[in-house]
């Protein structure tokens, strides 16, 4: 196969070689700023989050309650029809216990994160969020959880208006 890889054996560099001047390099840090428009569905979703509520859209054609809400049904490929409030309780569909931050740096206090399908939406319809008030040994798929909202005055219209989802005691299956 790649027999002639011998012709180009490749010049491997170590992790420090880019910084210590072993080879010539250029450093560049782009500065790209954005304002992402939330659009029709997400603007309403964010406004409702600020009020401490979760909202979905219903497609009357397939009967699904779509959450997160969108103005079109990607299955029927037609506009959705109505706004429907859903509950702030749900079920952990899957999760991870992360020892990595955004930049893949190690952290000692793990982040509990996963997907919550919300009650009142169609099955499996959910969002990604953090989990809290549970130990790493307690969290499991199928656990019933409820949103822990930030105080009304500190909510800004963001998914972070929910601090995390916590165990819904008493109704755990």
């Amino acid at each position, binding site marked *: 196969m790649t027999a002639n890889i011998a012709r180009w054996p490749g010049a491997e560099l170590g992790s420090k070689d880019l910084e210590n001047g072993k080879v010539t390099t250029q450093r560049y840090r782009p500065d790209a700023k954005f304002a992402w428009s939330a659009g029709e569905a997400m603007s309403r979703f964010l406004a409702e989050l600020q009020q401490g509520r979760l909202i979905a859209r219903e497609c009357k054609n397939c009967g699904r309650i779509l959450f997160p809400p969108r103005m079109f049904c990607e299955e029927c490929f037609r506009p959705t029809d109505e706004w429907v409030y859903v509950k702030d309780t749900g079920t952990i569909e*899957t999760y*991870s216990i992360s020892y990595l931050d955004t930049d893949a740096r190690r952290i000692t206090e793990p982040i509990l994160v996963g997907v919550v399908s919300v009650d009142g939406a169609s099955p499996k319809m959910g969002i990604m969020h953090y989990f809290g008030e549970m130990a*790493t040994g307690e969290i499991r798929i199928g656990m019933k959880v409820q949103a822990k909202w930030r105080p009304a005055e500190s909510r800004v219209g963001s998914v972070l208006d929910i601090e995390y989802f916590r165990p819904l005691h008493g109704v755990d299956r």
Partner: protein
Amino acid sequence: MRKVAVVGAGMTLFRRRLQETGKELSFEATRMALDQAKMEIGDVDAVVHGTAPDAFDGVHMKGEYLLDGSGGTRKPYMRVFTGGGTGVFSAIAGYWHVASGLADVALVVNEEKMSSCQPHPQSVFAHIWDPILDRPLKPNLVWIFAMEMNRYMTVHNIPYEDIARVAVKNKRNAVGHPCAQLADPKITLEDVMNSEIMAWPVRRLDISPPSDGAAAVVLASEEVVKKRKLRDQAAWIKGVGWCIDSTMWTDRDLYFPEYVARAAKMAYRQAKIDRPKQQIDFAEPYDPFDYKELHHLEGLGLADRGKAGLMTREGVTERDGKLPVCPSGGLLGVGNPIAATLGIKIGELYWQLTGQAGKRQIPNEVHTGVCQAWGDLMQYGSVVVMGA
């Protein structure tokens, strides 16, 4: 449609950091593929370049940037990008150039230089998420794989050691691959199972590394194969398929890769395969994480749902097993320069089917292989079936 063969392949060293520029890596891989096909750049009618997000190399309009190193100057040229699925999809795009009759010879070149991105390519992965729903949570890419792996393990009750075995097998298989970054003849199951937890259930050795590298293949029509007497070194593309599932990933059950199953169905129909378990001799499914090999074997119909781990435990997927899987060493052993995994997937099928795999040659005779790549937000599958 016309018959299309792979008649040459090349790939560079895969490493965490290489001094070569992306253009230079593309040239090296392409030159090796042309040399193997006994062709010059003038013999090439069209060029397809596959490469992942611009943010890795840190060059906007990467397709144009890499053009000169890919031999595309003043030719019909296009860049394709379907996330990690590009590793196999670019060859599908090359295939349709030749199958349609628009080109007699097409070159497919894939490149990635992830080391440019500081401190770690993970940083720019953050920008693939929905800016309103997901990014405020400061997600790490490993999270979604951890969530998918957890769902898969939990639904089927798969023990972690059955998943970790895949990493052991592939890192051992990579011994004998001249380009391999993480070949390890001595690695044990305990090494993987005791490696650092990154995002539970994913541990460090469950993950393939980011890499720099390039790979290329030359595709030719049946007429070209005959005229240039390349039959002995030709492997034929029998079927191609691709499919993408909804981007609303938090609305899908992640335990089964429906997108791979549909892509495989499309490829199998064209290849006239109705019993994949009996008709396919070996496979190169996409394995950036060890559980993904199992997940994808099930999507490809080569294992029953939830049973791919058992096949691994029983040795079925070893190089000398009944269904060798990732005889190249896969992404886990050879490395993961996203699009350039072309060399591990299409490239390995080519070398195995033409008996050129050297130390990695599957001892049993193989006539039909399938390779697959996967990408985007756990939603994209590209599948190619090849035969000797």
